[in-house]
């Protein structure tokens, strides 16, 4: 199986200069991962752990002060191979929409408020699709139908649509050209569960039909459970655990993953769910050692001094925790 995207020891920081004092936010800190062909890779993690930052690197959507400090990243689409940061910008832009597309978080701000939705479609998708305008509109309408959107919305301005409708419009924009690599940042947060299910199965459908790859960022663990093939868990700018979806839910090996999986409330269950103690670490001054140790119920002295490497533990899984082999009994004992 070939890899579409290979990321090696990537470090990408926001480097800011406030009147002479330098401030670094280490949003992506030493991340290595590969995205395979024909898979959906889920990314979950703490708010502000750098998920959006990481996929901005993937999508070649970095803007200063965000910079790659170290490491490299390579795409291999089969017909084209590209290193998005070594190559000319225009070359990358030519692949946008046709080879890879990016559904941004907070989709409303992407749509131009003074342009009708239909015009926005023409702006972005007409050229990469390579069809005439007369053929284009029916194709778009057909595609909107799959997302349960009526053709009327092409004549609306973004502010006339509900949050969920806007979100589906951006999904439609990113998928209408059927790209090989889709990067989606919280694409279904504003949808009701019925539509969400349909949209997810549409994304799944396109992915399987095209054999493309999807990177899917969401906080909703039940979405991860049902759409992804593999999941990577982020904490404070680092990848702390990665593995096949099924195993991640059944036997989490990192205490943070364990917490994520067990904190999900369910209908019919009124047991009080707690959130993690303490505050998320600041990425400008991260704690020493394992970054999770101040909030970890099973942390030992070693955890506060040494940084656990992300190591292969078999079954296609990688974990960064000193206690990965006995997380469950330790956590249960700690409670």
């Amino acid at each position, binding site marked *: 199986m070939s890899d579409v995207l290979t990321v090696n020891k990537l470090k990408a920081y926001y480097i800011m200069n406030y009147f002479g004092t330098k401030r670094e936010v280490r949003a992506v800190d030493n991340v290595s991962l590969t995205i395979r062909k024909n898979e959906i890779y889920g990314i979950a993690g703490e708010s502000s752990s750098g998920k959006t930052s990481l996929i901005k690197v993937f999508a070649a959507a970095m*803007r*200063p002060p965000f910079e790659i400090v170290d490491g490299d990243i390579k795409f291999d689409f089969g017909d084209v191979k590209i290193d998005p940061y070594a190559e000319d910008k225009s070359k990358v832009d030519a692949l946008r929409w046709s080879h890879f597309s990016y559904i941004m978080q907070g989709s409303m701000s992407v749509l131009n*408020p*003074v342009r009708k939705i239909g015009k926005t479609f023409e702006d972005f998708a007409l050229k990469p699709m390579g069809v005439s305008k007369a053929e284009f509109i029916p194709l778009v309408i057909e595609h909107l139908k799959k997302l349960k959107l009526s053709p009327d919305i092409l004549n609306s301005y973004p*502010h006339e649509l509900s949050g969920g409708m806007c979100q589906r419009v951006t999904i439609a924009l990113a998928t209408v050209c059927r790209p090989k690599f889709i990067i989606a940042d919280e694409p279904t947060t504003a949808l009701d569960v019925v539509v969400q299910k349909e949209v997810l199965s549409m994304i799944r459908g396109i992915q399987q039909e095209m054999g493309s790859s999807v990177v899917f960022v969401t906080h909703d663990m039940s979405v991860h459970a049902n759409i992804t093939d593999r999941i990577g868990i982020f904490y404070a700018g680092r990848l702390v655990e990665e593995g096949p979806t099924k195993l991640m839910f059944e036997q989490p090996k990192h205490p943070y993953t364990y917490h994520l999986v067990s904190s999900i409330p369910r209908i019919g269950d009124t047991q009080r769910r707690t959130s993690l103690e303490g505050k998320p670490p600041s990425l400008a001054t991260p704690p020493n050692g394992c970054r999770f140790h101040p909030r970890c119920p099973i942390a030992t002295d070693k955890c506060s001094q040494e940084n656990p490497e992300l190591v292969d533990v078999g079954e296609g899984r990688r974990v960064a925790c000193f206690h990965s082999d006995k997380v469950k009994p330790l956590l249960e004992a700690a409670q």
Partner: protein
Amino acid sequence: MFKVFSDLMRYNIEFAIGFFLFLFVFIFGALSFFSPVDPTQIYMLVPDIKPNAQYWFGTNSRGQDLFWQMTFAVRNSLLFGFTVAMMSRVLSLVIGLVSGYAGGWADRILMFVNDIFVSIPVFPILVLFFFVLRDDLTTLNLAILVALLGWAFDARLIRSMMLSLKHREFTQHAIFSGMPMHKIVLKEHLPYIMPIVFSTALANMIWSIGIEVTLAVLGFANISIPTFGTMLYWANNHSAMIAGIWWWILIPVVFIAMTFLGLYLLSVSLNEYIDPRQRLRRMGGGS
């Protein structure tokens, strides 16, 4: 401000070209203040002299020095375009803001009027006014008329911008943070709207100068004042083309082209720059 300018000069070739073209035309127009001759006087010189060392642009069949004639034409045309743009911007800003902000009936009525102005044919109306007003159609009156006809499209744009800003969550957030509405409009909305006003101002100048040229070439304007249009009118009137006095046509045409191109490039490059989305990107945020 200066930093922005120098950045634009350095990184945006369109802006640099546009800026120099416009600067050249502008300085040329300013020379008219030092003109030794009165542009309305005729037969002061030997007519039809080719451009030479003494008369750089030659003279025309009416015995005028084309160099100085041209400086006045540039000045008058730019002034005309500027006046129209200013007046029509004020109109479209006020009407767009009121319409978008007030909404409801005020909006419907204003937009109804707006639709009428968008759809009426500008050129025949102006010709009509020329025949009615004749000598009363001074340059200022013409500018007022053109401004009255040229605000509608951009008012619509500003209205829709305002409408969407009004609906944006940050507006509501500001309201519920206790900020007074006038402050919100001034501080939060105008930064989004002013760029439109500026960039459409340049486009409007091109449009209005173009209107003036068309009217004047056909003689529907006060032909005693030198402008781009009236210069071409007189050249035509004296069959300059047939008579072989090519410079009388060529020189105004070159200046018109430079003015239009300069304004166009400025408008395009500024447009890209001042769009808040783009600016946000440059700040490192947004998308």
